[in-house]
């Protein structure tokens, strides 16, 4: 197809419009551009059809995690989801389901930030920097630092989404944050009690759905949750075995594949 023909081509977006009092999907026809992402199409709608369409975005480069929503029922970053991936078929865009709606595609995700504040202690080094560390140990922790706080994993986790478990379980994103601190080679903080109780790690039953949607490809279940569960189990259920494992710890465990 020529570029001009492609431009003449349209795609229909069904965008959820509404707030706490209710809402409906509204259809908008948007011209297709080469390489366009869903966020481009939404910006077109804002500029020419619905200037008050509420949607969050900042970087438009999959770096900031602001533009999380559901595209055809899948939790996605709007700035990373190509329109042509749907082959010209209609596209349905809705807000995240796990969190309370503010307006249109914008939800109130403050719960996640409140839990991050509760995650105490923060990093507590056992010695002041500089830390003499090999790259492989840095890599292990940096995997968790990739998190862009998009909360797509929180949206998809059935404990939070279907069972309204925000009072019991902090969800995969906060598990990533726990892992980042707990697995830091120079950290001396202790958060296992918090993890076992308030944060409710026991509610996770390793369905792997969170890892599947993570746009940063963080192996949330294998690299974060399972090692954390092991630590909790060691502390509360098998202290002697834990001590033995610690004596024989080796670099290979860094991939954290749950062994």
């Amino acid at each position: 197809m020529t570029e001009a023909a492609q431009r003449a081509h349209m795609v229909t977006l069904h965008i959820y419009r509404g707030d706490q009092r209710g809402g409906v999907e509204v259809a908008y026809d948007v011209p297709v551009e080469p390489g366009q992402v869903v966020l481009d199409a939404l910006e077109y709608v804002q500029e020419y059809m619905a200037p008050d369409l509420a949607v969050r975005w900042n970087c438009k480069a999959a770096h900031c995690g602001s533009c999380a929503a559901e595209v055809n029922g899948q939790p996605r970053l709007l700035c990373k989801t190509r329109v042509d991936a749907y082959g010209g078929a209609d596209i349905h865009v809705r807000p995240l389901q796990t969190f309370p709606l503010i307006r249109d595609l914008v939800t109130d995700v403050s719960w996640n930030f409140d839990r991050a504040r509760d995650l105490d202690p923060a990093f507590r080094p056992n010695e002041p920097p500089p830390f003499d560390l090999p790259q492989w140990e840095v890599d292990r922790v940096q995997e968790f630092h990739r998190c862009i706080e998009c909360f797509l994993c929180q949206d998809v986790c059935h404990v939070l989404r279907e069972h309204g478990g925000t009072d019991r379980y902090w969800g995969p994103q906060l598990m990533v944050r726990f892992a980042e601190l707990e697995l830091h080679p120079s950290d001396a903080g202790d958060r296992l009690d918090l993890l076992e109780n308030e944060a409710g790690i026991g509610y996770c039953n390793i369905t792997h759905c969170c890892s599947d949607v993570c746009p940063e490809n963080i192996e949330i279940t294998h690299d974060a949750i399972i090692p954390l569960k092991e630590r909790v189990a060691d502390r509360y259920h098998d202290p002697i075995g834990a001590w033995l494992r610690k004596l024989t710890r080796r670099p290979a465990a860094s991939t954290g594949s749950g062994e």
Partner: protein
Amino acid sequence: MPYEVVHQDVLVIGAGGAGLRAAVAAAETGVQVGVVTKSLLGKAHTVMAEGGVAAAFGHMDGQDTWQVHFQDTMKSGHFLNNAHMVELLTREAPDRVLELEGWGALFDRTETGEILQRAFGAHSFRRLAHVGDRTGKELIRTLQNRAVHQGVAVYPEIIITRLFRDARRIAGALGYRRADGRFILFRTPTVIVATGGWGRLYSVTSNSWETTGDGANLAFSVGAELVDMEMVQFHPTGMLWPPGVRGLLVTEGVRGEGGLLYNADHERFMTRYDPERMELSTRDVVARAISSEVAAGRGTPHGGAWLDISHRGAPFILRKLPGMRDQFLQLADVDITRQPMEIAPTVHYMMGGVRVDPDTCATAVVGLYAAGEVAAGVHGANRLGGNSLADLLVFGRRAGLAAAAEVRDDPQLSEIAETEVQLAIAEALAPLGRTAGANPYAIQADLRRTMSQYAGLIRTGTGLTQGLERVRALQRQAVSLQVTGGPAFNPGWNLALDLQAMLVLAEAIFVSAIERTESRGAHFREDFPREDPAWGRFNLITTRGGEGGLRVRREPVVGAEPAAARTERPATASSGGPGRPGGSGGSGGSGGSGGSKEADQT
């Protein structure tokens, strides 16, 4: 109209690297600190920074010292930089980076376990501490967690539209919540503006939606001065195709790690422009080289150049530039481990901004500070890559400490008249109440085109004058903007308010660019293509003139002469000198912000 009132010892506007570092520094002294941000916490523009943070540790090249970093920075800034600020930056950067690791950050490592440093354009040595190609995220996440755990109060998704002062000092700030449009008044003896740049004035930019320059306009409106406004940095390598990603940054790290530039004839054209430094020349030189190649008919299919890193091999690229690889694969269907990237210059950074005292970041207004991209002085006519993140840490901390000290010395709150608050609220709400008027999206699109056309990489006197006229016409239209919908999470309304700042700063860029009749660093005038040593002695200061128009005056560059000559110990305390830059400016009251043009209507 009712509004909420909140008291704060130090109010930081902005939660990018500079704002968070300031908040952490102030909170450590025990004062009560609040941070407001337009977006959610952790989403500020800083999160996008990729390449690294410049700090002369000398881990890779033992000869590197802060003095060499100082020289590189001054040279790259064409000696318009404030030498004392550059000294502070280069001396303090290593400590600021290292302390981040004490708060949980982890930078990439050398074989021997030290912080690894990468090469970057126009740095004499490998100097940038980094985390793959997501250094900004490491920085912001570390500072965000540190701030939160120190008890800093965070006010996300609140947009400040007005600062208040009395005859003596700053008195507070008014903002609205994006979620419901309700207003909130912060009463505070000190305000730190850390709102970042104004890249969104241009149609092709690497910047996020927030970069509308609100803070520069807010500070300017109460009497702070602006400096070097003509200095707009174009990053040589922005994405070019497809259209939706136009302008998105391709990190300089690609060239730092060995990426090569080619024109359509597969020539390494940098041999013609800077045979010594080639791809790693300064940004102004590389950006203009690309645009010259395109003008000469040697551009790529969409009008840019090729950037190729594929010769480094897939394993290396996947390890060092994973974000870039994903970005091109997913958004442009290009696999950079096998194919070249098509790139073109993109508006990236504002060297100009609010004029501050080098040691304390104080502005001309008592109680008002500015730090980060919104402030000016460190980068002169052209910023070196990696120096912005260093700037945020060094001067964010200094601003935070100075504001906290001021609160302890002088905690007296200034009064804010109720009528002023009500007037400011009415002005902000006006676009929602109109039944007819200009569409903010249309004005914005026109403004961005105007800036790109007339105040771009290559400028002329006539073009600048035309651009200025166009901006003034847009300012007149923007007096009566109209938007649909209500105040709850309404991007159209948000834009209508953001435009007020954008239009003032656009004018400031034009008036300064017209004034500087030479070419220096990022500012290139086709009608004055040479650097003029006489001009090198002056910064351009923008203030408000008589009838709301802007006025530009020259002031001698601080410490330029000694810095150029000295290597051992550049710029002593005498060069910067304590105290407040400029005159007192504002005349009391809330001053006239961009929005005050609407005052007579409400």
